[in-house]
């Protein structure tokens, strides 16, 4: 329980920015080989020192950080940067509407502002523009919070956004939340989650204000504590759907507990009540150990960071850990028995189709390990390989259990050139991967399905059924990928696709 609090420390809110994950956690970001080798190389520390000769564009921590804070209700996001950073909002900004609608929340236009730094600002600093942008946001939109996402340019030239925030804080109706998520500072994009939560924890989580009641109730505090003693915060992530949240809440409720889904898509008032819970439960360690570790240190709220509740084994494991905390083991077993009996029966026809077929899964480490495990153990598929964005301590416990020693593991964030070479050589019948990868996999003719989706269900027992259903559906007509691969060209040379991807990995140059 709350195991990372013993190994890691979370008291960084005295600093303007959190440490990046390279230093805080230690990460392997480049690897190609068998699972057993990887585990021993991670233990010896070698795996963490690897880099690649030919690199392709991965993510940026700015995008991930802004993804978290921009989901909050009634916020304006200021990107302190030239026009390019987060310009993807022109395509994805509208998704905020659909996500909020799926959760039954009030429709809001998503407003973002670029400080539009130019050559002159690089020389003389961008603070005046940032000040103008903050005042404009306050005047025009009266938001609850104005988030300031700091990018590479001000990071390198040394704009002191925190002094500006100190100067304006308290003089505006909006709360100001600086987020230090300069892309060049970390190659490990999940640092962006820490940057975002650091801003939230430093600037939005205050001591709770209690108001005196007109009719005093001396038992109010006890009553409140009783109620919170059953509240379980389920920490959502940008890649889950509302359906996932409904399913996980259903399972937690079935144990007689009170689930509450936070922090994405919530209001500042909801965030202020983060601490009013008996337990914080993660559904993805990559996202929220920084937040949960800090809440444990600051408010004493215990947490569970373990597995991602996808598939039968992982969902049951996730439920058991929650139940254990509340001493509801017997209830959990009854629930699991009931749920899995129904589900296994329902999965039978899917298993018939998928059994023995080869599958490859790529994406975030906990997500792919749990997803791959479901395909292999419950649906009888032959897992030929996985590709993880990175490998760190969060999968030490779930990884080795679920994967065979000889399994092919590629550690790469993005890097489709390596992944397509691996896939060309392993020839899976089905691929399940992160957005951005599936299009390339279609181009080489392998049927595929997305690893996650904001409109699709994946988590819990209901999600497991949906995932199996989607996998079978993908194989009902494979003409799309056949036609695409026969007619759309790929920039990769044949010699590259045939060669051992290990050749692209090198030891990092000493710094």
């Amino acid at each position, binding site marked *: 329980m709350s195991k990372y609090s013993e190994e890691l420390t979370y008291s960084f809110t005295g600093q303007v920015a959190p440490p990046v994950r390279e230093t805080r956690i230690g990460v392997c970001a480049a690897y190609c080989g068998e699972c057993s080798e990887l585990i021993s190389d991670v233990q010896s520390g070698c795996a963490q020192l690897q880099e690649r000769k030919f690199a392709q564009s991965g993510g940026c921590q700015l995008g991930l950080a802004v993804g978290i804070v921009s989901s909050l209700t009634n916020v304006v996001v200021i990107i302190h940067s030239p026009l390019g950073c987060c310009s993807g909002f022109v395509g994805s900004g*509208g998704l905020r509407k659909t996500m909020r609608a799926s959760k039954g929340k009030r429709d809001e236009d998503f407003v973002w502002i670029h400080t539009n730094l130019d050559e002159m600002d690089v020389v003389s600093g961008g603070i005046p523009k940032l000040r103008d942008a903050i005042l404009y946001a306050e005047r025009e939109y009266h938001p609850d919070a104005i988030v300031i996402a700091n990018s590479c340019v001000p990071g390198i030239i040394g704009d002191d956004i925190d002094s500006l925030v100190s100067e304006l804080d308290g003089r505006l109706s909006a709360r100001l939340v600086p987020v230090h998520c300069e892309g060049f500072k970390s190659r490990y994009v999940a640092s962006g989650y820490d940057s975002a939560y650091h801003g939230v924890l430093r600037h939005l989580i205050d001591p709770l204000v209690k108001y005196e009641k007109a009719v005093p109730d001396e038992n109010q505090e006890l009553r409140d504590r009783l109620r919170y003693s059953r509240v379980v915060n389920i920490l959502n992530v940008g890649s889950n759907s509302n359906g996932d949240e409904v399913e996980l809440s259903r399972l937690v409720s079935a144990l007689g507990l009170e689930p509450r889904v936070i922090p994405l898509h919530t209001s500042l008032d909801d965030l202020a009540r983060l601490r009013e819970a008996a337990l914080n439960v993660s559904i993805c360690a990559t996202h929220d150990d920084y937040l949960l570790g800090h809440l444990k240190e600051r408010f004493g709220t215990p947490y569970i960071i373990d597995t991602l509740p996808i598939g039968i084994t992982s969902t049951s494991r996730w439920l058991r850990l929650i139940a254990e905390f509340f001493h509801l083991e017997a209830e959990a077993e009854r629930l699991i028995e009931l749920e899995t009996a129904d589900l296994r029966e329902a999965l039978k026809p899917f298993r018939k189709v998928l059994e023995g077929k080869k599958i490859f899964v790529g994406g975030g480490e906990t997500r792919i390990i749990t997803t791959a495990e479901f395909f292999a153990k419950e649906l009888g598929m032959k897992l030929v390989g996985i590709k993880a964005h990175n490998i760190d301590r969060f999968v030490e416990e779930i990884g080795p259990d679920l994967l065979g020693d000889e399994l092919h593991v590629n550690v790469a964030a993005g890097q489709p050139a390596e992944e397509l070479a691996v896939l060309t050589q392993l020839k899976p019948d089905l691929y399940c991967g992160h957005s951005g990868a599936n299009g390339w996999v279609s181009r080489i003719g392998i049927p595929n399905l997305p690893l996650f989706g904001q409109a699709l269900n994946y988590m819990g027992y209901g999600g497991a059924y949906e995932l199996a259903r989607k996998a079978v559906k993908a194989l009902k007509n494979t003409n799309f990928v056949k036609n695409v691969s026969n007619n759309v060209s790929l920039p990769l040379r044949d010699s590259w696709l045939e060669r051992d991807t290990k050749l692209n990995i090198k030891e990092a140059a000493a710094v």
Partner: protein
Amino acid sequence: MSTSTFIERSKFTCALGGALTTLAGLPRTVPIVHASGGCAGALSGAYNVAAGYRGVGYCGGGMIPTSNIAENNIVFGGEERLEEQIENTLVALDADLYVVLTGCQVEIIGDDAVSVARRFRGDNVIGVSTPGFLGNTFKGYDEVLTAIVGELIVPVANKDPLTVNLFGVVPGHDVFFRGNLDELTRLLARVGIHTNTFFGTGESIDRIRGYGDASLSIVLSPAAGEKPARKFEEVHGTPFVLDELPIGPTATAEFLRRIGGKLGVAPALIETVIADESGYYYSYFERIVDIYSDVDFQRYAIVSADSYYAHTLTRFLANDLGWIPHLTAINDLFDDDERAEYLKRFDDINSETKPVVVFETNAGQLLKHVRNSWARNKNEKYYDALSPAYVVGTGIERGLAEKLGAGFLAVAFPVSNRVILHKAITGFSGALTLVEDLITNLVAAR
């Protein structure tokens, strides 16, 4: 002090984004981005979705080679890392042209990526400096095409009197870029003019190398294309004209007369083609005459776009379709002289009502402009409302259209609520598709 200001909901990416979307429009071309790891994928991703689902192209998205500069390179410099990245890109990726682009980080620390690229000149590698802080999308387009004009296109002494270059159609930023270039190519071919389009159907790097015989460059945007056209004049001696992307029968007829006239095409041929194309246009347009008249599809038009589309769209809606041009907002010109010059274009709007024209870069302010342009409802019993209205703009205006209760069609970047494959909106057949899409939204609930 900088003269630019912050921008709310910018309809542009940065210079690097503009460079990437431009390269994604070129056949078999691979960008190599010297920057931090996320820039290329994110910028390419913006066009994948917001350019009417244009996709990442031959080598976009996560496939883009990137030097992946991090904090230690910021301290020690990243040129060595770039060199290694170029060498290995040549091993992995097959292309006719490799273009090294730079991001903000490496430019601030002073890496000379263009010189590093020059070492690989024999492998079809060129380098262009494109840090985001140089400016918006158009800046990146201009820098990349200027480099191609200067370094790739082979000088030719004998010009072909009937070959023209088309500049200013920015791939992805014009979500109809390829359809538009193909339609212009088709129309100009009818009057005997051959086009060099860079991004249209049938182009290749080899063909582009041979563009040097063009005798005229046509710049179709007030904000992009002039710089490479000037470079073309300087290197290849080809003059250029500033023109406009024509939409619909009136504007396209004038366009053909202007360009044909410049190149000495026989006026009789031009008039024959115009009559023929116009007849074709109206033979289809006729189909909506009944429904348009019977249920009144005349609308107050509110146009929001960059200078490339704002006037030409307004003109089509007013002069050809007969809508009432109420308000046109332009989101990209910043210089007072440029603005004054651009305003003159609206002199050719020949409807009884002339539009209010504003320059507004902050998307959220558009609603205020609309409200200030029309007498407010002071709870009168009889109120002459700005209705029925139709917003023709970018995807960002969806919220505006909802607030106004207006019809809505996204045609200018970003467009993420519909898929654009081979459609055009320029010329005669492009205008027909535009009419189809505009009116479809009015009958969609039937």
